C-alpha cells in the first residue's frame, strides 16, 4: 500500500499501458517537451520517445480525429486535451465520429480511444477555462464517461479505460491532482458502472462525482455534527451510470440530494434526480434536491467564483431547506 496523489496515479496507469502494449501511444498539446500542462506526463518523452509521446499542434479536431483514425487501423491511442473547454473544438470528432462509427458500421469498426482531459473550475481561470462538460458527453450513446475523485479510482478506472475497446472521455478535475490517497501495490481495476458508497448513513443520500464527491463528504461531516448520518455516493462513471446503487440507498434514506459542479440548468444532476424519482418515488420524503453551479459564466474574482461553485455549506443548507433536517 502506497500513498500517492491523483497525478501520480494517472501517470502510473499511463505508464503501465505504454509498457504493456506497443499499440498504445499518446498525443496532445505539450505532453512531451513541456511535460504536460498539468505535469501528468512528466518525463514520458524521455522514457518512451517522440514517436509514442507525440506533441501536437494546437489542433484539437485534428489530433482527436487522428486518434480515431489510428484506432481504426489497430492502434490504441490515448489523447490528452489540455482542458475540457478546448474539447469543444474536437466535439465533432468525439460526438459525430468516435461515438458513431461502431454503430453506423454495424460493428465493423472499433474505436479504442481514451481521451483524457481536465475538467472543473475553482482556479480563477474565468469563464472560458472553468467549465465542466463531462455531463454533456455522458448523454451521448457510444461514449463512456469517467470522472474519478481519488488516486485509487483514478488508477483503477484508467486501467479499465485503457483496456476498453470504446471511445472514452476521462475527466480529471484540475483541483484533484494533488489529492492524496492509498493505492494497493498489487494490481486491481475499478470497473465502469459501479458507484462507490463513500460513507454509509440512514438520513439522506448525497450523490456526487469528481470533486463534488469530496464536497459531499464534507457536507456529511457537517451533518454528523448535528447528529445526522448522510450516505455519500460517488458515481465514478457517468456512462455507464450505476443508478441501482443510488436507488438502493434512497430507498433506505428516503431523501436525496445531487451535487454537481456544472450549471444547474441542463446538468447531469437532473438526469440523476429524474431517474431516482422514476425508480424510488414512493420511497421519497420530498423532491430530489439539486445543488449545482450557479447559472452564470464563471467569474474571475476569487469571492465571486467561490460563490458559483457548490460547497459543503450550500449542500447542508439545501438539505435543511428541502427536508428540514
Amino acid at each position, binding site marked *: 500500500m502506497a500513498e500517492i496523489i491523483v497525478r501520480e496515479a494517472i501517470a502510473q496507469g499511463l505508464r503501465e499501458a505504454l509498457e504493456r502494449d506497443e499499440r498504445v501511444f499518446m498525443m496532445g498539446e505539450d505532453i512531451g517537451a513541456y511535460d504536460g500542462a498539468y505535469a501528468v506526463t512528466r518525463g514520458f518523452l524521455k522514457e518512451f520517445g517522440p514517436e509514442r509521446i507525440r506533441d501536437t499542434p494546437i489542433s484539437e479536431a485534428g489530433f482527436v480525429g487522428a486518434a480515431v483514425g489510428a484506432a481504426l487501423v489497430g492502434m490504441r491511442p490515448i489523447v490528452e486535451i489540455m482542458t475540457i473547454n478546448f474539447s469543444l473544438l474536437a466535439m465533432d470528432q468525439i460526438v459525430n465520429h468516435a461515438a458513431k462509427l461502431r454503430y453506423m458500421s*454495424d460493428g*465493423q469498426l472499433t474505436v479504442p480511444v481514451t481521451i483524457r482531459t481536465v475538467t472543473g473550475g475553482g482556479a480563477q481561470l474565468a469563464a472560458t477555462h472553468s467549465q465542466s462538460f463531462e455531463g454533456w458527453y455522458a448523454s451521448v450513446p457510444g461514449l463512456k464517461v469517467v470522472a474519478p475523485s481519488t488516486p485509487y479510482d483514478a488508477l483503477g478506472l484508467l486501467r479499465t479505460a485503457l483496456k476498453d475497446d470504446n471511445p472514452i472521455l476521462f475527466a480529471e478535475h484540475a483541483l484533484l491532482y494533488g489529492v492524496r490517497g492509498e493505492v494497493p501495490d498489487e494490481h486491481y481495476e475499478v470497473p465502469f458502472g459501479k458507484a462507490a458508497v463513500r460513507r454509509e448513513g440512514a438520513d439522506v443520500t448525497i450523490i456526487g462525482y469528481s470533486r463534488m464527491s469530496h464536497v459531499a463528504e464534507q457536507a456529511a461531516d457537517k451533518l454528523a455534527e448535528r447528529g445526522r448520518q448522510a450516505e455519500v455516493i460517488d458515481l465514478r462513471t457517468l456512462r455507464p451510470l450505476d443508478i441501482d446503487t443510488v436507488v438502493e440507498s434512497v430507498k433506505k434514506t428516503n431523501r436525496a440530494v445531487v451535487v454537481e459542479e456544472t450549471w444547474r440548468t441542463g446538468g447531469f444532476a437532473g438526469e440523476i434526480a429524474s431517474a431516482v424519482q422514476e425508480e424510488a418515488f414512493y420511497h421519497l420524503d420530498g423532491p430530489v434536491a439539486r445543488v449545482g453551479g450557479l447559472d452564470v459564466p464563471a467569474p474571475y474574482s476569487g469571492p465571486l467564483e467561490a460563490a458559483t461553485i457548490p460547497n459543503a455549506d450550500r449542500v447542508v443548507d439545501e438539505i435543511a431547506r428541502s427536508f428540514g433536517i
Partner: protein
Amino acid sequence: MKAAVNIDKAQVAEFYRKMLVIRRFEEASARLYMQSLIRGFLHLYIGEEAVAVGAISALGPQDYVITHYRDHGHALARGMDPKACMAELCGRATGSSGGKGGSMHLFNAKLHFMGGHAIVGGQMPIGVGMGLGIKLKRENGVVMVFFGDGAVNEGEFHESLNLASLWKLPVVFFLENNLYGMGTHVERTHAAGRDIYNFAEYYKIPSVQVDGMDLMEVHEATIEALRHVRAGQGPVFLEAMTYRYRGHSMADPVNYRDNSEVEEWRINDPINRFKMFAMGEGLITPSEVERIESEVAELIADAVEFARESPFPKAEAIYDNIYA
C-alpha cells in the same frame, strides 16, 4: 485522352465495367428513391465516375479508402457488393451496415473501405490518423482520403493537411472539385478561386490538378502520387476537376445553375469518353462493350431485386453495436 502508362485490355474492360456499375447503380437508386424505397438523403455520383475508378483502381489491398457522404462510387470502385450497398440504401438487414448507416455511411472494413462520413470535412483527420497508425505499425499501406470542394473551407481540412505534412504520413488527399457545395459555386466560397490545389503548396504538400472527366489522366496521376507516398515522402494532394450531373441530393431542385452548363459537361462524359478512347486504341471491341453493358445491367437488376426482397432489420438490432 492519353495512355502514358501501360494498360492492357483486361484493365480497360475492368475500368469500363466499374464506371458503368456506378452509373447504373446510381440510376437505379434514383428510381428506388422515387418509389420511396430509399429515404433520407441520397447523393448521386453520376458524372464523377472516372475519379473514383481511376484513383481507387491504382490502390492495393493493403491501402485504405475513406470518403464523404457521396460515397457509392468510391464504395463500388473499391469492390463493395452492389447488393450490400443497395440493401443498405433501402435500410435492410442485409445492407452493409445492417440498415444502420444508409446511403451516406457505407463501410466495408475487410476491403479497407472505412466509410462514408457525412459531416463535411470530418473524415479528413480520421484519414490522417489512419496514415499515422499505418506508419507507427510500420506497414506499407497508403490512405486515400476523398473530399469535396465544400470541405476545404473547414478547419478540419487545414488541420489535416498540416498534421499529415508535419508527420510525413502516407496519405493521398483527393479533392473532387465538382464546383459546387450544395448550391454554392466554389468561386463564391473560396477566396483563392477555383484552383484549390494551390492550398497544398503552403503546407509543403506536392499537388496536381487533373481532368476528372478523363479516367486515364486520373489513373496516371494517382499512380505517380502513390509512388511519392510509398517512398515515405509524406502526403500528396490531387485535385480532380469534375462535375455532378444531378442535384446535390435527390431533394435538390437545382435552381442555382443553368442547364446549359450541365449539357456542356456532358459532352465530356467520362464513361463515353473512355469508351471512345479505348475503341480508338483498339483496346476494346464494340461487342465487348455490349457484353459488359448487359452484364452490368443484370448485376444492378439483381442488386435491386435483392434489396427489395430483403427483410428490414429486427427490432432487437436497435441496441446492437453501440459499444464494442
